[in-house]
Every structure is written in structure tokens, then in C-alpha cells.
């Protein structure tokens, strides 16, 4: 059976499952559409939250980011998990007690202000739409690679599929579909990792394999990796090379941003009780951790396997320089050997490329941008190297190419394709639900047409979802070419606007309408301006006013880390403005006191 047929079977079977679930769980009321009638158990909700949260970025990109940077990119691992502690402790139980459907609704009620609610909607739309574009692009790329169709055809197939189950099913359909998608994506992520951990370290569990012994050379896996990459002139894998301050601020921005993402927060509206909201965050993190503790092992082992493919000497010996005990891989092998077919497949996509610069028939992969060590300097002189001959290795291919690099059977590749799609589609559906809720519930029912019937509100929510899918697909067809920056922008915005205003709304009775409005505006605008100064105004290339390098950053703070500073500005402005203006009305103080106490949460409803 050809690889193409296998991919088709796995992808087709997983889609049939999702659509079947969506039809079975069709939503009938607005309560079911937005919050699944609050009938979802904490474990199921945790699993759905995990699928919702783990996007194409977690599934496809993160292990690659760790693979090529090592310890310094631990920030993603800690940042994208630590946010759940903040959610469980500071937001989830209280927002569940509040008992409404959307994040802007809480902001509007707590700060007794339509203006605050609409600012909340605007933040939510900007954050969620940038995210959806990224997911749709991921769907298009995965389809085109595995179904052998063009990227735009792949994108339209994905859009049609999301439309069917998100628009029909609402939160109820999405929740159960996401449970199925979680199972698909975690199986797809774990199986190749287990195979590779067994091959390299003899450990079944990749989590143990990362800290285990590399069997062929008999030294520890991480020590072996450090030796191999430093031989080739790269920075050590386990060493700390970046600024400590920026590492702390970036991790904090990811944590606060996670806790401020509206599509994650609304998951906690769907559990039956306040105590379930607390444990639900724990279950979500358990299911996320199953992938997040495997990811560093995948990163390290994929980096090692890639290097050992280029230099077969990397597998043996333990002392510095042993990587060069055998010659580099030959150009002829790369172009003809069946086990290196993956290199030729990925070369077509432009994400991997090689070039025999010195014409010796060998492809030497090394870092030509740093001062070479003793062994590498000798190799450069002896073999007359003219520069790195594997100049293009995209981070994003590491997870998808991993099973092929390790020569795993074809069905594993089929599962990984289905898993990558599950990750992108589940996140897209969750984001679309947050968008449609904000538009139909907060903008239309809450502001433009308060007397709208439940039936028409549901229709408006579905139309909003359909329009968002269309917008995201059209933008995904011509991605503005700033995926990485917009992700940073979405996190920065969530961290600097939504998280602080929610937290202050719960933990302070003194923060008033003016404080919340000015705090949100100051937080968002300062973060936006800082990002635009370095990345270009509205990301238009060439309009940046300062060069985006560490030397130019204010106190060495990178634009991606600035969300933390934006959040601090938000807190400070809200505090100062609130104390300079009148106290909030008595009924708002009573609202805050009631959400702090679990009793009475059962009476929650949307109207």
C-alpha cells in the first residue's frame, strides 16, 4: 500500500469520526451552543481544553524550537504550562461562579460599563482571529504535504470541515469532537517518540529516555548531544546562552498570555460546579503535560538523529571531535538512498536544502557563523570547506519528518498527519466559538439588538462563525507572512489586556470603570507600540523605527516578552486611575463578594 493511500485512510477515518460526533451532539439551545449546558465532567472538559489549547504551534513547531536551541527555549515548556496554575488559582473558579457565557460579559458587568465590554470584545477578536489564521495556514500546509493537493485546496477542505462541526455542534459538539481530537493527536505524538526513544536509549518512555543513556556510545543522551553539537560549532544544548531577564519576562508573558486567552477561559464556563473549575484546570494540564513532557525528548532526539544522518561518526565515541571519526554523508546517498527519501521530499517544500559548496561530493553540516573549535577547524582546513552545506533546515519540519528520519513504518507517518490536523482543527474550532460568542452575545444581544430572540441569537452566532471561517480562510490563502510575530502579538495582547482586568475584577473591589478602561487601553497600546517599533508598524516590512536586535531593546527586553511589561502597566494605571476617581457602586461590590464564594453557583444562566 502506498504512503499516500495510508495517509488518506488515517486522515479520512479521523474526519469521519469528528463529523459523526458533531451530528450526534447537535446543539439545540444557546446554553448548549455556548457552554454545553454545563454538563461536561472535569476530566472530559480537561481533555477538550487540552485539544483546544494545543494548536499546530504546540504539535508541529515547539519540539523543533527546542531541538535547535536546547535549554534556552525551555521558556515555551514552562510558559505554556504554568499559565494553567494562574487559571486555576486566580480566574477559573470565580468566572464559573459568575456564571455567564463570555469574557467581555464579565468585563461589562463587573465594571458596569458598555465601553469596557466593547474594548473586551475588540481585544478578543484581535487575539482570536490572528490565532485562527495561523491554524488555517497549518491545516493547508499539512493537507498539501500529506494529501498531495495544493495548499489552497487543502485550506478549503479544512474550512469546510470546521464549518460542519463547529457551526452545527456549537460548544457541545466541539467539546466531544475535541475529546476525540485529543486522543488522535496524543497518540500521533507519542508513538514515534516511543519508537525513537527505544532506538536511541532503550527506554520505552521518552520522558526517561531524555535523561537516559545513549546506547550506541554508552554516554548520557544529553551529554552526547552537547558533545556532538559543540563539535559542529553550535552552542551547547543544555547551556544557558540568552539573557536571564528576557528569559524570565518571556516565560511570564507566555504564562499570563495563556491565562488571558479567551478561548481557553471559556472552557471553564462549561463545568457543572465551581470546585470542578479548579480541578478541570488540573486535568487540562495533565493532558497537556502528556505532550509537553514528550516534546523536549522529541526535540533532543530529532536533533541528534538529524546530526547523525549528516555525520555518521556522531553515533560513536564520547570524546570531543569523535563526530569527525567518519566522513560526512555523500551527495550521492542523499540523492538516491531510499532511507533518505524524506530529505528529497522536504526539499520540494523548500523547508530543507543542501548544496555541495566545495564540490567534494560530501555534504558537510556545521555552524559557519561561529569561531570553530579545534577539531572542526582541522576539518575545515583539511576538507577545504566553503561554508555550511545544509543551509536550510526549518524548525517546523522536525516533528513531521521525525518518523521518516528514524525510518519508522508508513502507518506511523499516516497517524502523525492525522494528529497534526487534529491539533490545528480543534484549536480553530475553539477560537471560532469564542469569536461567535463575542459577536452574537456581546455585540448583537448585549449592545445592538438587546431584544433578539434566543433562536435568532443562535442564528447570529452561526453566521458569525461562518463569516469568521471565511475571513480566516481568505487570509490563510495569502498569509501576511508574519505568523511568528502575530503569535507574539496575540500573547502580548492577551497578557497586557484581558488577564489583568479579569484578575483585578475578582481580587479588588476598588478597581472601577475608569480604572479598567484606562488600564486595558494603556496595557494594549504600550504593548502594540513596543512590538511595532521593532517589527514595523502593523507589521509592514521596513517601517520599523528601531532594528530588532538585543542591543536595541529597552533594557534587553524582546518585543515577544513585552506582554509582561504591558500587564504591569495595565495594573499600575488601573490602580492609580481607580484611586483618583469614585468608588464602584454597592451592587458591584456585592457582585464581587458573591463570585468569591462557591455557594449558589447552580443558579447560573445567560440572561
Amino acid at each position, binding site marked *: 500500500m502506498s504512503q499516500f493511500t495510508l495517509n488518506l485512510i488515517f486522515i479520512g477515518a479521523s474526519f469521519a469520526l469528528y463529523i459523526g460526533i458533531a451530528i450526534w451532539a447537535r446543539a439545540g439551545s444557546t446554553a448548549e451552543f455556548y457552554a454545553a449546558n454545563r454538563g461536561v465532567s472535569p476530566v472530559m472538559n480537561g481533555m477538550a481544553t487540552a485539544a483546544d489549547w494545543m494548536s499546530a504551534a504546540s504539535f508541529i513547531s515547539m519540539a523543533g524550537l527546542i531541538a535547535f536551541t536546547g535549554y534556552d527555549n525551555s521558556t515555551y515548556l514552562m510558559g505554556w*504550562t504554568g499559565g494553567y*496554575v494562574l487559571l486555576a488559582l486566580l480566574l477559573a473558579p470565580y468566572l464559573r461562579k459568575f456564571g455567564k457565557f463570555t469574557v467581555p460579559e464579565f468585563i461589562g458587568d463587573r465594571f458596569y460599563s458598555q465601553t469596557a465590554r466593547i474594548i473586551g470584545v475588540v481585544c478578543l477578536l484581535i487575539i482570536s482571529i490572528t490565532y485562527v489564521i495561523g491554524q488555517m495556514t497549518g491545516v493547508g500546509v499539512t493537507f498539501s504535504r500529506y494529501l498531495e493537493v495544493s495548499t489552497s485546496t487543502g485550506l478549503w477542505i479544512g474550512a469546510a470541515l470546521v464549518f460542519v462541526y463547529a457551526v452545527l455542534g456549537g460548544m457541545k459538539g466541539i467539546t466531544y469532537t475535541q475529546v476525540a481530537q485529543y486522543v488522535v493527536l496524543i497518540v500521533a505524538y507519542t508513538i514515534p517518540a516511543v519508537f525513537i526513544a527505544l532506538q536511541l536509549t532503550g527506554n520505552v518512555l521518552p520522558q526517561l529516555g531524555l535523561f*537516559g543513556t545513549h546506547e550506541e556510545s554508552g554516554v548520557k543522551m*544529553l551529554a552526547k548531544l552537547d558533545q556532538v553539537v559543540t563539535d559542529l560549532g553550535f552552542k551547547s544544548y543544555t547551556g544557558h546562552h540568552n539573557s536571564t531577564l528576557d528569559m*524570565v519576562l518571556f516565560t511570564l508573558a507566555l504564562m499570563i498570555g495563556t491565562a488571558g486567552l479567551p478561548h481557553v477561559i471559556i472552557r471553564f464556563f462549561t463545568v457543572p460546579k465551581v*470546585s470542578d473549575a*479548579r480541578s478541570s484546570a488540573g486535568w487540562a494540564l495533565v493532558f497537556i*503535560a502528556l505532550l509537553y513532557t514528550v516534546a523536549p525528548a522529541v526535540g533532543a532526539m530529532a536533533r541528534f538523529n538529524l546530526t547523525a544522518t549528516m555525520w555518521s561518526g556522531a553515533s560513536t565515541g564520547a570524546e570531543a571531535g569523535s563526530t569527525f571519526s567518519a566522513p560526512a554523508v555523500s551527495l550521492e546517498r542523499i540523492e538516491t538512498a531510499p532511507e533518505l527519501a524524506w530529505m528529497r521530499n522536504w526539499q520540494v517544500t523548500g523547508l530543507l536544502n543542501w548544496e555541495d559548496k566545495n564540490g567534494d561530493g560530501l555534504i558537510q553540516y556545521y555552524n559557519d557563523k561561529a569561531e570553530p573549535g579545534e577539531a572542526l577547524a582541522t576539518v575545515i582546513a583539511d576538507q577545504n570547506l566553503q561554508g555550511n552545506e545544509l543551509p536550510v533546515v526549518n524548525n517546523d519540519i522536525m516533528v513531521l519528518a521525525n518518523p521518516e528520519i528514524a525510518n519508522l513504518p508508513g502507518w506511523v507517518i499516516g497517524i502523525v498527519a492525522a494528529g497534526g490536523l487534529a491539533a490545528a482543527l480543534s484549536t480553530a474550532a475553539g477560537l471560532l466559538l469564542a469569536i461567535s460568542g463575542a459577536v452574537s452575545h456581546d455585540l448583537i444581544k448585549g449592545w445592538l439588538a438587546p431584544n433578539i430572540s434566543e433562536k435568532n441569537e443562535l442564528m447570529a452566532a452561526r453566521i458569525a462563525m461562518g463569516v469568521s471561517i471565511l475571513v480566516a480562510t481568505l487570509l490563510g490563502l495569502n498569509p501576511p507572512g508574519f505568523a511568528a510575530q502575530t503569535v507574539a502579538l496575540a500573547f502580548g495582547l492577551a497578557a497586557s489586556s484581558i488577564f489583568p482586568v479579569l484578575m483585578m475584577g475578582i481580587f479588588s473591589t476598588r478597581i472601577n470603570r475608569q480604572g479598567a478602561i484606562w488600564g486595558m487601553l494603556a496595557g494594549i497600546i504600550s504593548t502594540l507600540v513596543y512590538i511595532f517599533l521593532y517589527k514595523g508598524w502593523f507589521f509592514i516590512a521596513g517601517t520599523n523605527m528601531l532594528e530588532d536586535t538585543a542591543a536595541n531593546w529597552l533594557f534587553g527586553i524582546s518585543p515577544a516578552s513585552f506582554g509582561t511589561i504591558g500587564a504591569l502597566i495595565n495594573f499600575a494605571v488601573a490602580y492609580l486611575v481607580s484611586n483618583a476617581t469614585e468608588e464602584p457602586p454597592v451592587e458591584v461590590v456585592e457582585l464581587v463578594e458573591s463570585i468569591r464564594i462557591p*455557594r449558589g453557583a447552580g443558579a447560573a444562566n445567560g440572561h
Partner: protein
Amino acid sequence: MSDRQSSNAYWRANIRIIWICLIIWALVSYGFGIILRPLISGIPVGGSDLGFWFAQQGSILIFIALIFWYAARMNRLDREHGVEE
């Protein structure tokens, strides 16, 4: 009035528990994982050091334990103050 006093006591106890959790949360990630890593670099863990383990695995495991401990502790606190659902 007694209701108000009881709910104030409940809230103060909750804030104390939140602080304990946040201190541990910060210590394992920002502390052991990043800032204090040089101090504990003498303790080897599987080819690297304890700080590397905290940054890539340990902090995540402790985050999970922390949330479940908080959830269980708060359930008890809810009952002690008679504010459970």
C-alpha cells in the same frame, strides 16, 4: 453580620493558600529553572543538571501537583466555612 465575617475569614484563608501556591510556582520555574540554576548546577541529573530538569520536566510535574493540591485544599476550606455548593 456573622455571614460577612465568615466570608471574610474564608477569603483571607483562600488568599493565604494562593500565596503559598504562587511562591512554589515561581520557585520551581523562575527560581530553579532559570535564575537559581547556577546555584544547583552541581547536582547532576541524567547528563545535565537539576536546573535543566526543572526547566524541561520538573516544573510541569510540580504545576500539576500544585493545582490538584489547591483544588483539594479549597474543597476542604469550602466545607469548613460552609460555603460549598
